[in-house]
């Protein structure tokens, strides 16, 4: 158990001399507290697995340091780092029984037999593996195998952190839910620092108390699920999280007003005069834009289609050349193909070159 500090950590598979733009992980500095549940979220190739492998020691960083509880462990090998990791595909030691598989990490570290047995029994219990303990691990189903992998990750009580590299990829959707809530429960029970890599926002948002969103080798935002939803620090976070993602529209912003397509949208905060030469956009989640009958005071849009998600309906509309998603309020029936859009000013954010601009209240 440990606090993890990343200090100016960066990695390039092309060596340290490669141009920084090509780095798989651009320099990042952040702190993960002991006992937290973190998710690294981002699309494929964003550097999240690289970051995970740097922490576990499978990959040695090109620059920067990793500290566990203030101690620099960058030069240490994986074995000496006291880390557990669960991989995307189940790793099973074929010749061993389920119980022996779970005991393997403890046995290798010379833990006393009584303690091994107790710990294996506890973990098997938590993961519902007790009936299989004496069975060979080879012939089990994929999800049972992945549970064994999870168990091997969790069996050591002294680990600095448990790392998960998209561990539920091979699991059926229904079991995914079960295992995810199981993991959450295990986190509460075992008081371990857990770091969970995924490209699935539902997985990240349900598992973690802090989600670290990565894009193109950079950490673009780190925050609670609510923060990521309410106040994306980067347009990428805006449209990557949420379904449908945030509407990002080029606009002219001055003071309390944003001008889109000649129409004025009121803003909650004062942005003064933004520096020229930057790409200014406003971002607003579809949940905070309502479709209404066309009216003179409203931004008018062309309705292209309605997506019915069951509990909520989203209208896909077009404003000028920009595509937009907006909520269809309950009881509103669409007539014709033009509509007006009502914005909730508290939730309209301003972005300069993709980064959030904090206005003045």
């Amino acid at each position, binding site marked *: 158990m440990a606090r993890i500090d990343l200090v100016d950590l960066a990695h390039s598979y092309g060596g340290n001399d490669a141009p920084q733009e090509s780095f798989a992980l651009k320099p990042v500095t952040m702190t993960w507290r002991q006992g937290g549940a973190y998710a690294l979220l981002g699309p494929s190739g964003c550097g999240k697995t690289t970051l995970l492998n740097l922490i*576990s020691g*499978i990959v040695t960083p090109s620059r920067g340091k990793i500290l566990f509880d203030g101690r620099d462990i960058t030069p240490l*090998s*994986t*074995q000496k780092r006291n*880390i*557990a*990791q669960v*991989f*995307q*595909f189940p*790793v099973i*030691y*074929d*010749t*061993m029984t389920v119980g022996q598989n779970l005991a*393997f*990490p403890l046995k*290798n*570290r010379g833990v006393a037999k009584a303690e091994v047995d107790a710990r294996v029994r506890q973990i098997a219990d938590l993961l519902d593996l007790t009936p*299989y303990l*004496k*069975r*060979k691990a080879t*012939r089990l189903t994929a999800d049972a195998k992945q549970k064994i*992998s999870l168990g*091997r990750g969790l069996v050591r009580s002294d680990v600095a952190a448990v790392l998960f590299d998209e561990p539920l990829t091979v699991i059926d959707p229904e079991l995914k839910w079960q295992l995810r809530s199981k993991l959450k429960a295990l986190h509460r029970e075992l008081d371990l620092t857990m770091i969970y890599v995924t490209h699935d926002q539902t997985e990240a948002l349900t598992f973690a108390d802090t989600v670290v969103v990565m894009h193109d080798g950079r950490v673009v935002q780190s925050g609670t699920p609510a923060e990521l939803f309410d106040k994306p620090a980067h347009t990428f976070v805006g449209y990557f999280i949420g379904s449908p993602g945030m509407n990002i529209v080029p606009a002219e912003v001055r003071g309390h007003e944003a001008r889109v397509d000649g129409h004025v949208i009121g803003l909650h905060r004062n942005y003064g005069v933004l520096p020229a030469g930057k790409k200014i956009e406003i971002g607003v989640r579809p949940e905070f834009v309502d479709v209404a009958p066309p009216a003179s005071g409203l931004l008018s849009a062309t309705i292209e289609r309605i997506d019915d998600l069951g509990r909520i309906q989203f209208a896909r509309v077009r404003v000028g050349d920009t595509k937009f998603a907006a909520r269809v309020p309950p009881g509103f029936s669409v007539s014709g193909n033009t509509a007006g859009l009502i914005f909730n000013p508290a939730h309209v954010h301003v972005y300069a070159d993709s980064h959030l601009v904090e206005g003045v209240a």
Partner: protein
Amino acid sequence: MDKTINQKAWFLVLPVFLVVAFSAVLPLMTVVNYSMQDTFGNNQFFWNGVGWFKELLDPSTDLGGRFLASLGRNLFFSAVILAIEVPLGIIVALSMPREGWSVAACLVILALPLLIPWNVVGTIWQIFGRPDIGLLGYVLNHLGLNYNYVSNEVDAWVTVIVMDVWHWTSLVALLCYAGLKSIPDAYYQAAQIDGASRWAVFKAIQLPKMNRVLLIAVLLRFMDSFMIYTEPFVVTGGGPGNSTTFVSIELVKIALGQFDLGKAAALSLVYNLIILIVCWVFYTVMVNAGSERPAKEGAA
């Protein structure tokens, strides 16, 4: 259930019947036919029943004595070959590089001995081991070792075994390497994280994953070494005395040297049967070794 009756099916399997008949059944039955008879040349045959088979299994007769002695030598040879080549092949495979240009270099070097025809291998070693002009023989004798595979039985055996190891360890190594390459990186990473020692990685990951290819390697090496003919024949000619006369060499002597077709036919049938049985035993044992018994599974 209604059964469709269509006699045309017989015509469709006819080609297979013909091919199998001419390639396997007829030649085999010819051998069976010979094994029941005796001949004194001139294509004259006399019925002998199971007489040859009785003699084969009776060490007091000439045929039985020669057969059982050479069979013993053959079994010993195969056992030694397997005991050396399998572990050595595994070690070679484990120490081979995993990536880079050196992989290709290693593979080519390993494949070289496999590409050389048997009798050429025999000739190479026959010359290599000669005390007067062979590099190995000359150096050994110069160092004070009285090495001579023509006159010394132990030297002859060592030469034949070293030659076979040189020729065929590559096959085991290549098969094992293929098995090792198929292990995903995640296994090694997981083992690292689980704190496994080098030996534990070998035992828990590499050996189980090589199980299948090792089975193939053992079967191939057993069959080949049990049927070995050309190389020892070229190097030692079965000598000194009869010390390196294996079953196949004995068989050729009887069939072509003495033209005793009856004895040779009986011998080859028994020879064939032994190979089949041993391979079946190997296969059954190795396939079942890794899997759990149904009885245990029920208890779990």
